[in-house]
């Protein structure tokens, strides 16, 4: 094995990949959220459709899309590999184990939360991304694909809203742990800054997930 | 056999230098042809194993622990002395030497102690280089504190866990040699017999504690670094596994046992709370730097306190007797351990003890807290206070600590010459396992110093002198003596397992402990010692006829391990009593009630007892033969220790 593969297949090496991709995905969430805020513009979806048209056609964005795919891919693959390895490190378990007395549940459930998010992601991708990119959406008044209408009709179905809001709750807990955890894994732990990072992590997780969750709720209840 | 201490000629300060020049050297290319066995991997053992391996010898190291890092050296709290004079307070090699000789009540060898003081400075340098995180001043230099019995600040420390940090240093050096393949490490292996071939130590027999397998190992020399035998008292500050088995097996093969009655009772331990008690916990002596020792002035007041009619706070200042400060104004609470212990016992014997049992005195930090503030005090002693609170559920920031003396260290041990070789050629003893440097009482922060001095800086020179005198031909376990020793171990184990009596090894151990503590403890007298001797003999007979064990040899059998150790303690105990009976004087930790000054201080008899009592085994249930090594004092004047 070369030093490169050795580095990135070591326990810390894999963690570092998870951390870097995780923090990268956090930046994606911000961009995604900010863009989607166009949904709230009361213009029958014109602005949103311009935005989604731009995202679907701009060559820079299209290139970055692949980076995003790689980010997701590595984040999921490395996390999965680590989870398997960690599970295997204790073949015989405890008869009586009370982890709730020493740690928060979501920190211990990152793999589960991640899996839930992945399931959501597949549904979400199929529903919006796939149909926007490869589907046959009707044009809107500006002759852009009318993704807005698809979003609105989707969010009129209760089970869809439930799925989305549920996924955001999972994502929120995933982020509360993941945000600060990413810094810790990259070695960025400092008596001065770590408490600040923790607070930012909480705010980030809540704001981002509340933002995303507000969309289906808004359309279900107010439109 | 004639006891030749092999002390080099010449002025005291030059002896070690000259000796190092005069010892024979082993050719560097030949060192790898010599095998050395080291039993015990505490400070003395791990440092020796690492240093000898660095020189090129093949080392086999043995410990009954699961890792060398668990040896009981780890529990030493206070510190390690070194004559660095970093504090510019008048310390010197000679002063450390002088303090140690005096502290030991003039029952140790001048030459050994001087060497110890000389190499003490190298130990600190070595440990710092290994990354031992000693306490430091704000300027980045090493910090010192003063310790019981010394009027200079020469003690280096790492908060309250100096022992752990020093041991981890030695353990890391040892680990490096294990990784290099120069040390073969045998963990969970207990030495149960010494193998002597043609009068020379040639190997050992061990039991693998996990599988029960009995193994033999051969080497050109054997070093015992197995610690002290304080657990003969059952309750002591020693770890539960500490035992005398390795040196005792060697003793029965011809190694003389020196000054067995010299045991140190440490003044600041957490008192016994009940019969179930399995061990006693030391509170570092450093606490006496700021804590003030007191009991109520009157018996009546103490009784009311014990009965719960009054509380500590109800006792006004003038009703408190700070007895150490009162009796020893110049040393105050910092008098040596034997003096502090005996005075605590005296106060309790007068009925002035505190706590539910009345067997405790106060160690009070109220003044220190008032003077320096809680923060400063907690910085110095925080971990000790926390430990105290965990055990007693009392907060020492609010209530004074209750302390009582407990067995802590054994100055006696295998007799060794200046080269640390026992009376069996090729068998060495280092650290607490030998008798050499502390006389009748050890000063605080000296045990770590001695263990590391022996291992890092003495044995590496002196063992070469012995090895160079034999050809570098391989040694094997083929000799009949190995078979014999192995069979003896098997037979002994089977005997223990086949008694099938009614009493557990711990019951016997506790019973022995009571006899020893009551009659051969802090103070002794002829009548009590005679009684103890008979009691021990009786207990030993009962042990071999009424011991109960279950299980087999071929498995992890912890009760079997204990039984083997208790069997040896039952023999050692009698020798300690014999030694105490023989020594018709009081000195250091050995206080014979018949021999005291009008002020109840120890009364030495230099005329008749300025010797090392080295005992030779003569056979089961036979009286041992006493050999005397006269102690020569050419550089210090023998005076009565005065700490007033």
């Amino acid at each position, binding site marked *: 094995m070369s*030093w490169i593969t*050795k580095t990135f297949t*070591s*326990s*810390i090496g894999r*963690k*570092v990949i998870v951390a870097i991709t995780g923090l990268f995905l956090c930046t994606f969430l911000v961009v995604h959220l900010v863009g989607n805020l166009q949904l709230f513009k009361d213009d029958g979806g014109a602005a949103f459709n311009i935005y989604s048209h731009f995202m679907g056609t701009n060559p820079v964005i299209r290139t970055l899309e692949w980076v995003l795919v790689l980010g997701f891919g590595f984040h999921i693959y490395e996390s999965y590999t*680590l989870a398997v390895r*960690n599970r295997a*490190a*204790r073949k*015989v378990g405890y*008869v*009586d184990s009370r*982890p709730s007395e*020493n*740690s928060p549940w979501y*920190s211990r459930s990152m793999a589960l939360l991640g899996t839930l998010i992945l399931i959501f992601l597949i549904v979400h991708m199929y529903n919006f991304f796939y149909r926007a990119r490869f589907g046959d959406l009707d044009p809107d008044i500006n002759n852009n694909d009318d993704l807005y209408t698809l979003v609105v009709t989707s969010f009129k179905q209760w089970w869809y809203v439930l799925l989305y809001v549920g996924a955001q709750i999972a994502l929120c807990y995933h982020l509360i742990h993941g945000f600060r955890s990413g810094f810790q894994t990259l070695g*960025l*732990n400092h008596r001065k800054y770590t408490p600040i990072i923790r607070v930012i992590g909480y705010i980030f997780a809540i704001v981002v997930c509340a933002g995303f969750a507000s969309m289906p709720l808004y359309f279900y209840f107010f439109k | 056999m004639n006891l030749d201490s092999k002390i080099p000629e010449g002025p005291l300060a030059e002896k070690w230098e000259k000796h190092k020049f005069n010892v024979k050297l082993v050719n560097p290319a030949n060192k790898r042809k010599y095998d050395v066995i080291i039993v015990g991997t505490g400070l003395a053992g791990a440092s020796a194993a*690492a*240093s000898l391996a*660095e020189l090129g010898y093949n080392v086999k190291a043995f410990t009954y622990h*699961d890792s060398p*890092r668990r040896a009981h050296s*780890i*529990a030493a709290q206070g510190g390690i002395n070194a004559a660095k004079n970093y504090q510019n307070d008048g310390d010197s090699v000679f002063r450390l030497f002088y303090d140690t000789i005096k502290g030991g009540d003039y029952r140790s060898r001048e030459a050994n102690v001087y060497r110890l003081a000389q190499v003490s400075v190298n130990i600190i*340098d070595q440990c710092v*280089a*290994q*990354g031992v*995180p000693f306490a*430091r001043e*704000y*300027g*980045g230099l090493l910090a010192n504190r003063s310790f019981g019995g010394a009027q200079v600040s020469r003690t280096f420390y790492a*908060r309250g*866990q100096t022992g752990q*940090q020093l041991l981890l240093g030695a353990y890391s*050096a040892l*680990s*490096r040699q294990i*990784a290099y393949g120069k040390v073969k490490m045998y963990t969970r292996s207990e030495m149960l017999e010494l193998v002597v071939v043609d009068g020379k130590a040639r190997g050992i027999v061990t039991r693998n504690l996990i599988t029960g397998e009995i193994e033999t190992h051969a080497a050109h020399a054997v070093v015992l670094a197995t610690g002290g035998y304080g657990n003969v008292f059952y309750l002591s500050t020693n*770890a539960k596994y500490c035992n005398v088995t390795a040196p005792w097996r060697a003793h029965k093969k011809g190694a003389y046992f020196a000054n067995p009655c010299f045991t140190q009772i440490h003044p600041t331990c957490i008192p016994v709370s*009940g019969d179930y*008690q*399995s061990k006693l*916990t030391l509170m570092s002596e450093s606490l006496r730097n700021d804590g003030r020792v007191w009991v109520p002035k009157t018996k009546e007041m103490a009784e009311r306190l014990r009965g719960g009619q009054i509380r500590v706070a109800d006792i006004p200042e003038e009703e408190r007797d700070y007895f150490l400060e009162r009796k020893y104004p110049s040393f105050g609470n910092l008098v040596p351990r034997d003096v502090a212990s005996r005075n605590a016992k005296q106060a309790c014997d007068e009925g002035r003890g505190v706590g*539910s049992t009345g067997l405790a005195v106060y160690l009070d930090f109220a003044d220190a807290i008032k003077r320096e503030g809680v923060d400063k005090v907690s910085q110095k002693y925080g971990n000790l206070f*926390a*430990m105290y609170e965990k055990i007693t*559920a*009392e907060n020492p920031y609010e*209530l004074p600590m209750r302390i009582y003396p407990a067995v802590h260290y054994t100055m006696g041990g295998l007799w060794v010459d200046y080269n640390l070789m026992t009376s069996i050629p090729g068998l060495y003893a280092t650290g607490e396992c030998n008798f050499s440097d502390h006389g009748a009482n050890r000063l605080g922060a000296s045990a770590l110093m001695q263990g590391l001095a022996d291992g890092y*800086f003495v044995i590496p020179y002196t063992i070469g002198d012995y090895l160079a005198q034999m050809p570098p031909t391989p040694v094997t376990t083929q000799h009949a003596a190995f078979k014999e020793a192995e069979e003896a171990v098997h037979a002994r184990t089977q005997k223990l397992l086949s008694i099938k009596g009614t009493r557990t090894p711990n019951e016997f151990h506790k019973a022995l402990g009571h006899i020893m503590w009551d009659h051969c403890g802090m103070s002794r007298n002829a009548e009590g010692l005679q009684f103890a001797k008979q009691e021990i003999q009786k207990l030993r007979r009962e042990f071999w006829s009424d011991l*109960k*064990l*279950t*299980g087999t040899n071929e*498995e992890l059998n912890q009760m079997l391990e204990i039984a083997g150790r208790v069997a040896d303690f039952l023999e050692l105990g009698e020798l300690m009593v014999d030694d105490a009976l023989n020594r018709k004087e009081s000195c250091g930790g050995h206080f014979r009630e018949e021999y005291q000054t009008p002020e109840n201080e120890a009364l030495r008899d230099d005329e008749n007892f300025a010797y090392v009592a080295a005992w030779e085994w003569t056979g089961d249930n036979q009286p041992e033969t006493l050999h005397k090594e006269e102690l020569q004092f050419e550089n210090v004047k023998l005076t009565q220790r005065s700490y007033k």
Partner: protein
Amino acid sequence: MAGNNPNAKPMNLTLKVWRQRNRNSEGKIVEYQVKDISPEMSFLEMLDVLNEDLLLKGDEPVAFDHDCREGICGSCDLFINGRAHGPEKGTTTCQLHMRKFSDGDTITIEPWRANAFPVNRDLSVDRSAFDRIIQAGGYISVNTGGVPDGNEIPIPKNIADKAFEAATCISCGACVAACKNASAMLFVSAKISQLALLPQGQVERKTRVENMVAQMDKEGFGACTNIGQCAAECPVGISLENIALMNREFISAKATSENLA
């Protein structure tokens, strides 16, 4: 004055203890009753009582690791009621006292669980993996003798204190036992931090972290997911900062060392 209370009421307890004859045999939980346990006893003294009872009845006593019984040797290693070293924070098993339990309690006692810590017997486990990790680089390569004077290397007090805090690790393995992933990173990082912080440790700084992490992985410990169970259960309070420092050391060593292997 609970610590000195002659009237503390004795307790009767039910113990559920893991019994396993040796490394290769199957184990199971066996139930025992112990009576008249004083609240002043340490947990291990309570087990002593059980073992004396068992032996007198002709049963085999429960094997468990212990030695100094003052919280420093790191030998004791019991998983008590679902927690490494039991319910009290910052406490080794030997320093846990029975006053933390109540009359009538049922207490489950298990050995540390991790593939890297195989069970020797009953509650005793083999932690030699820790030794092998230290052997991979947890030292400063200086031979005895020939070192500079102790005061020739001034070390800022805050750095010395930090190194000391990392060095207080007692290698008990509670971090591994408590971790969902059976990860040893708190243990390994404590040693790496200690030596990386000190000037003496700089020379071998890169090889040390590379080799120790490689050995840690080889022993079969899991990987850290920053849950913090290790630090929460650590009896001597080793901080998670050490793990971050180790990660940093590892990343920088891998990026800059000339080690191609």
